[in-house]
């Protein structure tokens, strides 16, 4: 399938990408393209211009910066999955990256692209929200708590480009997802992060947008064990229902994934 016509422009720097965005009528940023290009092939998206930011060197890095791990927006999933720096600081994040899509998708897809797209079943949003990360753009810093605003929607404004994600290094963390047996997308995925002060729980795949579960967070902050949350029922209201799973089933799976994630984080 062939997308509608558009103009392709490769940006060599963030400044150049900003300028190209400003000049185009209805431009979209192209990062790994593993969702955007598929969408354009279906002709569900028809940008006038594609500004390719995936090969900007200043957006491709993984480094430890004090108590945080900082990842450039155009860093590929495969690079996060294989990174020693990630393994030494937040191994759960590397394991999560290894679970995204398939090897070919991981060679192209980027963390910035995943966050900007905010697919309801995407993996990275759960990690970024549970870990209390900060998303930095060409204009400002946005707390993960304020970033994900709804299904496929974020706090990003027109002309805003994610440059990096700064992730506080937790004491313990783990991610568990129940994959759809055919597509392997998360039907329910739970990322749990424990810091000195508290535990944060983020759920993806279950609802229209990644969300935190305050009741589980409070219980796990008091007692970090699967037993602490075994009696907490996840509310099926507002969860997704489709041919793959009803809202009630997703609610159930969310609890199971949460307990498994606590177990593997505590191990």
């Amino acid at each position, binding site marked *: *399938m*062939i*997308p*509608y*016509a*558009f*103009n*392709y422009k*490769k940006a060599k720097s963030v400044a150049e990408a900003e300028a190209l965005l400003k000049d185009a009528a209805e431009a979209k940023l*192209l990062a790994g*393209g*593993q969702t955007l*290009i*598929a969408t354009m*092939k*279906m002709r569900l998206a028809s940008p006038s211009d*594609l500004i*390719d930011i*995936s090969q900007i060197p200043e957006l491709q890095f993984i480094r430890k910066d004090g108590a945080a791990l900082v990842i450039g927006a155009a860093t590929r999933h*495969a690079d996060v999955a294989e990174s020693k720096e990630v393994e030494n600081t937040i191994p759960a994040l590397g394991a999560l990256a290894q679970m995204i*899509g*398939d*090897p*070919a*998708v991981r*060679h*192209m897809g980027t963390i910035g692209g995943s966050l900007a797209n905010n697919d309801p079943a995407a993996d990275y949003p759960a990690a970024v929200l549970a870990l209390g990360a900060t998303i930095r753009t060409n204009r400002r810093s946005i707390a993960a708590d304020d970033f994900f605003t709804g299904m496929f929607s974020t706090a990003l404004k027109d002309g805003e480009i994610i440059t990096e994600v700064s992730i506080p290094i937790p004491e313990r963390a783990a991610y568990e997802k129940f994959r759809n047996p055919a597509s*392997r997308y998360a039907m329910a995925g739970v990322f749990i992060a424990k810091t000195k002060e508290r535990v944060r729980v983020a759920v993806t795949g279950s609802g229209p947008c990644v969300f935190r579960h305050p009741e589980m967070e409070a219980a796990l902050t008091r007692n970090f064990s699967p037993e602490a949350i075994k009696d907490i029922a996840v509310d099926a209201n507002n969860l997704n229902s489709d041919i793959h799973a009803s809202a009630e089933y997703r609610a159930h799976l969310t609890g199971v994934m949460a307990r498994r994630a606590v177990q593997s984080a505590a191990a």
Partner: protein
Amino acid sequence: MSVVSMTVNGKKVSADVEDRTLLVYYLRENLRLTGTHIGCDTSQCGACVVHLNGKAVKSCTIFAAQAADAEVTTIEGLARDGRLHPVQDAFRDNHGLQCGFCTPGMIMTAIDMIRRGKATDRDSIRHELEGNICRCTGYHNIVSAIEDASRRMAMAEAAE
């Protein structure tokens, strides 16, 4: 239209294509390298897998312009001096194909996973094959072929 140049199977190539041209069409229609297949159009089947700067990617989900100045290897670039690549040999010896439509993508994916050291056991080979769909074989012989190829390549490397 813009002129997109890259290196494909070791040869410098160039074509004047529309910006919306996907890499797979650039390879098939401009270069006439039709070994790279289009199986699904929805980025799921992996019949179009090629190597971009040495890494497996789906050529139906990347524009030719993105691969400008890059090195691309397709199934046509594997055989050397009339001799098949060890992974191609292993697919033949293990009957790793029936209709053969998915085979180019399977082989490009297999080489990539072997290079990354992920073809260590049948389970991990199956995981690595997540992005490649075969509708004939049930994967059993494909997994055997990759396991065999991985062994042969390790032995060849040790012998060198």
